[in-house]
């Protein structure tokens, strides 16, 4: 499927999903919101980490920065601009740290990106306390929940569109080359540093924008809530379970994961995380290629008929 087909399909899917507020109850819409948000986060994570085989744990930091931009701008910036600014701030931050740490690999990169996230969290805590005399911020004026849903949907659609475009263009090829053999790619003319920084920043843009878009739901913004490592881990989990080399995999994974977790949580209020952990282990052991490998198999079977 080429870019144009993929983007058309995305547009159709987006329009269908945009109609959900008229079809679903408040609760199911909130559930859809969560799935769409994680789909956007997982796709944006995979955009960089999938082809390059980097393991970034900075998603929580980008997301948190985005929420803080909304909180700082509350009352001054309109919602749409906050989201844009949140994305830009996160992207700028990613470009900055990317320049410093993207030469690291494997577990070193994973730990240092996590460390960067924590550094931002503690840095903001310290700044707010020392110069503003508080740690939390209140967002009193919140848009309607349907507005939030549409905004999150829009950003997530943007993430998917960006992922498709990156995949099908030179940047994607460069990233795959870097993931496979960085030095080889360089000797063939890839400016690895610039490609990595650009892709890392692009991926951070969407995480930051999603944070900025979601912030208005929580009324009270403090570092402990919004730099929740849980959000970052969940994103990595979803992307990897889905198959980070693909675009459809993380999307499907976000939906399956979101619905399954919620179903288990409501049906087994005490046992659900135990079941979830167990399922996760089984999944990794017996479906190592991720959810995307199911599509492959299915496509392959259909091709053979």
């Amino acid at each position, binding site marked *: 499927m080429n870019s144009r087909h993929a983007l058309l399909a995305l547009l159709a*899917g987006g329009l269908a999903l945009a109609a959900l507020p008229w079809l679903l109850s*408040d609760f199911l819409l909130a559930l859809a919101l969560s799935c769409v948000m994680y789909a956007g986060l997982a796709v944006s994570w995979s955009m960089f980490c999938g082809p390059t085989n980097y393991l970034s744990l900075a998603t929580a930091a980008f997301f948190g920065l985005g929420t803080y931009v909304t909180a700082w701008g509350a009352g001054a910036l309109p919602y749409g601009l906050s989201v844009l600014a949140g994305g830009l701030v996160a992207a700028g931050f990613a470009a900055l740290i990317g320049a410093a740490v993207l030469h690291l690999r494997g577990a070193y990169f994973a730990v240092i990106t996590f460390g960067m996230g924590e550094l931002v969290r503690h840095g903001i805590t310290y700044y707010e306390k020392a110069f503003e005399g508080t740690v939390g911020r209140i967002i009193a004026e919140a848009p309607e929940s349907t507005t939030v849903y549409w905004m999150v949907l829009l950003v997530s659609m943007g993430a998917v569109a960006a992922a498709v475009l990156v995949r099908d263009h030179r940047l994607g090829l460069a990233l795959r080359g870097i993931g496979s053999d960085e030095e080889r790619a360089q000797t063939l003319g890839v400016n690895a540093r610039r490609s990595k920084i650009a892709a890392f920043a692009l991926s951070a843009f969407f995480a930051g924008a999603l944070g900025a878009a979601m912030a208005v739901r929580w009324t009270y913004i403090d570092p402990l809530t919004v730099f929740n490592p849980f959000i970052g881990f969940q994103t990595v989990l979803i992307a990897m379970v889905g198959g980070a080399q693909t675009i459809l995999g993380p999307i499907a994974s976000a939906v399956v994961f979101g619905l399954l977790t919620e179903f288990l949580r409501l049906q087994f209020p005490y046992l659900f995380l135990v079941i979830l952990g167990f399922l996760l282990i089984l999944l990794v052991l017996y479906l190592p290629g991720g959810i995307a490998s199911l599509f492959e198999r299915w496509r392959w079977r259909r091709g053979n008929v």
Partner: protein
Amino acid sequence: MGIVHFVRGAAAVALAAMAAVPALAQDVRIGYAISRSGPGAPGAQTSQEPNYIMWAEQVNAAGGLNVGGKKRKIELIGYDDRTDAETMLRTYEKLMTSDKVDLILPPWGTGLNFALMPLAQRHGYPMLSPTATGRKLLSLKNPYFFPLLQQPDVMMEALATFLKARGTKTAAVVHVDELFGLEQAAALEKAFKEKGIQIIEKKSYPFGVKDLQPVLRDIKAKEPGAFIALSYPPDTFLITAQSKALAFNPSAFYAAVGTAFPIYRDKMGAATVEGVMGLGTWNPKSGPAAKAYFDAHVARWKKEPDRWASAHCWAGLQILQQAVEKVGLDRKKIRDYIASTEFDTVIGKIRFKNGENVSTPGVVSQWQNGEFEVVWPPERATASSQFPKPGWN
């Protein structure tokens, strides 16, 4: 591209699976989300959810909730929110709009209560919150929000008055870098200033710290008359153990959250904590109602309730029960009734004014012989204070 179909299909499955629980005839359905996992779990499971469950059991054992002269059983619907704001919100959206529960009980902690307030107001559910405190919450002027704990300035004012009366001249303060610690610290500074107690050292530290000995050492060298730690449970334990190691023994040793937990006494040793002061409101000796509550809790859970928020939580449930039995299940009427009435509770009279609990005074408690005795104000005291604090044992 199968995403749309996939989502539609999945949504249909989810709809079927998560359809509203059908209302059993006549039961009063009360829903909540609470932290059973995540960072909020220890606090929520110490001070909050056990009370929710015990209350429903007690009411049901007595035949049910008296609604318009008819006894109706309580059906409690509780989910884990994983201490995650979005999960918490989604759960209450389900409870309020899909399940259409009759009443809700609030989630744990200041942050999650903040996040829930707009939703509760939109759907008109009163929140009697036992574990949220801070003037910032009240600044939202949410008519459905009734926090049960004392506000920081009230607590700190009491502490300052208590210390002033005992001739304290200087104090050192440490606080945790969270909204709680900052608001308490600001309130304390103001109160001490009014009372003429000089703060000779003030330090803050991040949540999750594992060693504070260097800080305590510096403070000890300054010989403050009183030491005030506006701390959370892990740091409360840490500060106690390390102050003891340093033989840092000021006349008044005060640590905020966690001193009221029975585990504090059990972990540190009853002899060690002798004379340590902290945030508390009550103990079994506070009155017959308190004693009954204490005994019931021990019988049901095989553990003592904490001497601060647990009883506030119980008081909130009592208020809710009295309101329902008076005006029925019309939530608007319940709200108005709560806002305008003075209630009798396990921690004494409670009346709300502009959402604030203006009846429960600031209290200072102190560990003495294995009980967290109330030592201030005099009308609530269950024992006289030990001042200065005896040496560490």
